[in-house]
């Protein structure tokens, strides 16, 4: 039996290094493939700063970040909110922030959780591989910050702020859900910036010049194709490429907001998996440390206390309930997959013939790499977990006066609940489906969007405000048509005049 690395609660840099080395060795044995780690110690105030810029290590300046900062600070000061123990950035090297207030146990836990759990997830998961470039993100953020502050100097803070406001309003509509994106790449960005500006402008000019009404064209009017030919879901991209009056620098700002949105898009789609994966591994690594005699009993007790806090799931009728806890669900599912692999029972063999009895490390690795929350749940949520969580689904139809319990955790309900829960994590069902439908290129240049409601869910009252922002970016009138189930336009919202 070897000696424990430390016995007290206080951490030192030497101890952190020792723990890191020990954890790294264990992680390697388990086959975790990670980016190199960069661990930064910060104070609580710096943590608040990091919160405000939504986890970006370097952010451009904007009032909304100030608002978040003030809000968090208020809550923190009044004790309404605890701070996260860590923040981890999807970059290479993978940056993890550790708070100086943490105990030694906490620091070790955070290293296992963030620097190895999240880190390997960032590196392995297909969404992150396809959508983000960990090598370039820091450089890109530096570039964005500098570019925007240069714009502020040149065009005034208000001008840039208004533009950013408008872009932020549409940031969630700046990704191609079904197209394979190009990862943000820094070198290319800088080299091509100038080139792109000129090129973009010429493209836009081309579009509008060609469509200046001419006699012949008028005769062919009926045959003119729709523009865009197919509806576009990436509104910001459409604006960047086609808005008639934007200056080159404004297009670049639109692009920056779009790219930052794209960078965060995978995180929004893999919360359950990402946290589940990280919790699963910190649990295993910590136990392994204990088994090797590297940590004391007290250390483990402290660890179990915070671990159970993190992965607990309050019932729906509890005061603490605020939706399904992604840590709890993710951790339970990862652990359950291991169980199915290692000691499957008859039910598991029926439900998961492929993985029951397989090598658990390979299976988990496969699951981590190739899924997102939605598909992960529909693939791996087992009947046993549904029973453990006592999941049930409720249908809320505003046309009916009562809610209906559509299924519960019984034989008939497993499939149904699994599908319903999977849908709950399907972003395209939870975010309104709004697409660029048409531009009146031959008339008043107005832009028409179409909203196709899912299950009759209406748009929130903020829509009009967003349309004003879109109007500002497009510079001409903007119309939003809402379709019903038969594809007929039932409702129209518009913003034709610029906001005063």
């Amino acid at each position, binding site marked *: 039996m070897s000696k424990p690395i430390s016995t007290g609660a206080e951490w030192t840099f030497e101890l952190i290094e020792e723990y890191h080395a020990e954890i790294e060795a264990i992680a390697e044995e388990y086959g975790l493939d990670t980016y190199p780690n960069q661990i930064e*110690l910060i104070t609580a105030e*710096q943590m608040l700063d990091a919160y405000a810029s939504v986890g970006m290590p370097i952010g451009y300046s904007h009032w909304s970040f100030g608002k978040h900062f003030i809000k968090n600070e208020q809550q923190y000061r009044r004790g309404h909110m605890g701070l996260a123990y860590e923040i981890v950035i999807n970059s290479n090297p993978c940056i993890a922030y550790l708070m100086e207030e943490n105990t030694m146990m906490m620091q070790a836990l955070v290293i296992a959780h963030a620097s190895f759990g999240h880190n390997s997830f960032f590196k392995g998961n297909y969404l992150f591989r396809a959508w983000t470039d960990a090598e370039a993100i820091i450089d890109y953020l530096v570039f964005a910050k500098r570019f925007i502050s240069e714009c502020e100097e040149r065009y005034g803070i208000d001008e840039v702020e208004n533009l950013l406001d408008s872009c932020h309003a549409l940031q969630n509509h700046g990704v191609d859900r079904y197209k394979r994106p190009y990862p943000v790449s820094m070198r290319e960005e800088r080299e091509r910036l100038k080139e792109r500006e000129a090129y973009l402008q010429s493209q836009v000019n081309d579009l509008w010049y060609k469509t200046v009404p001419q006699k012949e064209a008028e005769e062919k009017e009926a045959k003119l194709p729709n523009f865009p030919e197919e509806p576009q879901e990436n509104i910001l991209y459409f604006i960047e490429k086609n808005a008639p009056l934007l200056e080159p620098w404004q297009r670049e700002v639109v692009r920056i907001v779009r790219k930052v949105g794209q960078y965060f898009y995978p995180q929004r789609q893999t919360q359950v998996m990402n946290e589940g994966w990280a919790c699963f591994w910190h649990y295993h690594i910590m136990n392994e440390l204990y088994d090797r005699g590297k940590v004391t009993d007290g250390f483990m007790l402290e660890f179990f206390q915070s671990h159970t806090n993190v992965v607990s799931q309050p019932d*729906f009728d509890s005061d603490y309930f605020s939706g399904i806890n992604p840590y709890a669900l993710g951790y339970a599912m990862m652990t359950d997959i291991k169980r199915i692999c290692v000691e499957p029972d008859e039910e598991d063999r029926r439900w998961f013939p492929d993985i029951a009895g397989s090598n658990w490390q390979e299976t988990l690795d496969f699951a981590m790499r190739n899924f997102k929350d939605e598909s992960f749940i529909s693939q791996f949520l087992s009947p046993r977990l549904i029973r453990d969580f006592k999941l049930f689904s409720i249908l809320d139809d505003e046309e009916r006066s009562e809610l209906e319990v559509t299924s519960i955790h019984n034989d008939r309900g497993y499939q149904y609940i699994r599908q319903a829960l999977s849908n709950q994590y399907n972003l395209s069902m939870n975010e309104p489906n709004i697409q660029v439908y048409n531009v009146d290129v031959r008339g008043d240049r107005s832009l028409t969007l179409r909203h196709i409601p899912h299950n009759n869910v209406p748009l929130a009252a903020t829509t009009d405000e967003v349309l004003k922002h879109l109007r500002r970016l497009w510079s001409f009138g903007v119309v939003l048509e809402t379709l019903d189930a038969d594809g007929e336009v039932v409702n129209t919202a518009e913003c034709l005049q610029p906001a005063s």
Partner: protein
Amino acid sequence: MAQLIDRRPNAKGKSTVNRQRFLRRYKTQIKKAISEQISERSITDIDGGESVSIPTRDITEPTFRNDQGGVREGVYPGNKEFAQGDKIKRPINQGQGGGRRASDSGEGEDDFVFEISRDEYLDMLFDDLELPNLQKNQLSKMTKSKAVRAGFTNDGVPTNINIVRSLRSALSRRMAMGAEPRRQLREMEAELQELEQKPGSDETRCLALRQEIEDLKNRIRRIPFIDTFDLRFNNFVQRPEPTSQAVMFCLMDVSGSMDQETKDIAKRFYILLYLFLTRSYRDVDVVYIRHHTQAKEVDEEEFFYSRETGGTIVSSALELTRDIIAQRYPPTDWNIYAAQASDGDNWNDDSPVCEQLLAKQLLPQLRYYAYVEITRRDHQGLWAHYENLLQAHDNFAMQHIREQDDIYPVFREFFRKQVQ
């Protein structure tokens, strides 16, 4: 291997810029909130910061979002009594719908409340205001000078010797001067050693070498540890500085006609003035002068809370002000401000005297003289005579306050930025 970086010494306040941006954007709302509060705020805590609330709907960031309604299905944990097909009454306050609505949609009625610091509070409060006549007198104000550090010199008085610098140059001089002899010494010692080991070598040469080695050692020893040449002195230069001291005279009528409410209004006005002056001057003295038929310099407590009766002769206070200035506050060294609060009562024959006193003796020495009349009645003689002064003196101002809510607007009126 991990890189371990200690970021704690880094500047905090990475968000300061963003916070400033936020304040800047909502300046109008914040200012409105502040001016609403100033009249309600108690006198003593005016020195602190302020909590400001802005309606949440003003600061939301809109996005396309789904609203409540339509057909939704949700999965919840912890089923206890439900069976498939059960019908449940729709809970009234969203209940199971999850806690999304209140926080995210921005529909909530709650205001966004946050603290601003004292400095930010004052900035907002006094935004667009400036000290009257500050610019005009700026040059003439440069009367004080201050010694500031200005590098190092080679000569000076012993008290200013910079020990570290002096010893450092002594060390480098010793090294430079000793370098050559030490090199020679090394060579000769090597040669001597060689000769001594070789049997039958030249004995005279050895002797000569020993002698030279001795000389060199002496030479090195004689290099002085410190020389006057090495001395470095801290250098100071005198730089003229604008006077950062101001004195504020508070003049108040305490005759029987001034009731406590009127005094409170006056007090608020003085507090605003005091805060305002502290923004521009490091030290602000306050002199309290109260008067009825006679004037007296008093302390703050007595100024505001003691009761007096009797008639009113304003000129007595003006004379006392003049005397105190002459004795203690020479206008060359002090920025002098005065504010007089009164209900407008004065002994009729005295008003012309006041006018003369101000015009001839006081106003030329003052940066600014503000007169506030706190009354609901018509103006009396004093007001008319003071009005005569307005034309000729731009450092004189007068305003009428009827009730508490007037204080702040009147104050702004006094110190409005002059558009040029």
